[in-house]
């Protein structure tokens, strides 16, 4: 059976190997209040090449706001439609409507949006798997990327 997905980076590991950089109610605010994290943060120095995790179509390319430069790619996995979302990008080399193939270079990671305030040691790709093109707020319309990848590279980097 032909492979139909891959990882977004050449080396994929959760930022700082911290659970708080995985999906779910894993973040915390001042008084300990849990906060959602909508995807996985992969360690990625600014300028790291990001790849299409599957063949599909570029649904949106946007800039500004808390996410910064971001791209959404619509793809199908096991007969179900999903949207792969890449945020805090430095450069995006695709446009809305472009057809992308598995492993196509789609741009480079960065620290746009709110990530601009993080020290360099925290540079990352914010990556989400969405079940809707317009998913709503927080965790709405999103699933853990482990549903696609089958494994979370929390402790051991995985080559893409």
């Amino acid at each position, binding site marked *: 059976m032909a492979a139909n997905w891959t990882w977004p980076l*050449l080396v994929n590991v959760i930022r700082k190997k911290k659970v708080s950089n995985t999906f*779910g109610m894993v973040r915390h605010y*001042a008084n300990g209040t849990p*906060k959602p994290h909508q995807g996985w943060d992969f360690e990625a120095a600014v300028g790291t090449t990001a790849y299409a995790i599957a063949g599909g179509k570029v649904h949106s390319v946007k800039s500004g706001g808390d996410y910064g430069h971001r791209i959404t790619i619509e793809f199908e996995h096991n007969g179900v439609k999903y949207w792969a979302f890449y945020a805090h990008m430095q450069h995006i080399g695709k446009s809305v409507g472009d057809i992308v193939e598995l492993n196509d270079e789609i741009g480079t990671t960065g620290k746009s949006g709110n990530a601009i305030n993080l020290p360099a040691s925290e540079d990352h790709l914010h990556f989400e798997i969405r079940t809707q093109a317009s998913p709503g*707020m*927080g*965790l709405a319309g999103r699933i853990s990327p482990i549903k696609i990848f089958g494994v979370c590279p929390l402790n051991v980097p995985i080559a893409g």
Partner: protein
Amino acid sequence: MSVGRAPAFVTALVLGAGVVLAVSVVAGAASPTVPGPPAGPLEAQRPTAVSVKAATLGMRSCSKMLELGGSLVVGACRERAAARGQTGPLHLVVAQRLPGGAAAVKYTGPSAGDAYSLKPTVFARPGAAGPFVVLAEAAAELSYGIGVYVVDGASVRHAGDMDVGVATDDGEGPSSAVPFARLEWTDAGLCVRFTRDLVRPKPDGTYTPVARDRLAYVYASGRLTEATSCGNR
């Protein structure tokens, strides 16, 4: 099934879980009382931004700090990491400027947790008369909410937090509600309301809408409490 690419080097990693104590110093009386400025609206200020040497505050780094009048400044500073490879959390810091870019800490707010950014906005009565109110919005990919601080001379108090945001134009977020905040001193104390509909977090990580005219916050007797309006607590 995964498709492999060429192997590449692996970045060295150091585990970084950090629970770091926030040092909170509140000048003034132990039993808080609300400052009693004349009733009326507060305006968002555009204070001069100045650089201070973070090391003199015992911090790893600070954003440019905002002048509060006199020699006081307020800004967001990142704490030094507790261990190599970790990253310390952000705090709101009020400091007194000293010659040569140095500064002395007057107040350090609680940790902003996992937030990537902490953006203070200063409010004051017309003419930049104190006491100042600072709304500090913490955010990562989405807003974590707003800390409310009252700065009255040398007395700095964390009034509480407003766990609200606003939907972005594309329905995502939530994003910061600070641009839509309207503050006023009333006979009951400080009141914060909003000119745009809000969202509040639910335990499952999604958000629920709240009409702008159904939620306000009132700071009185040392506590920030929710209200349905500025006149109806």
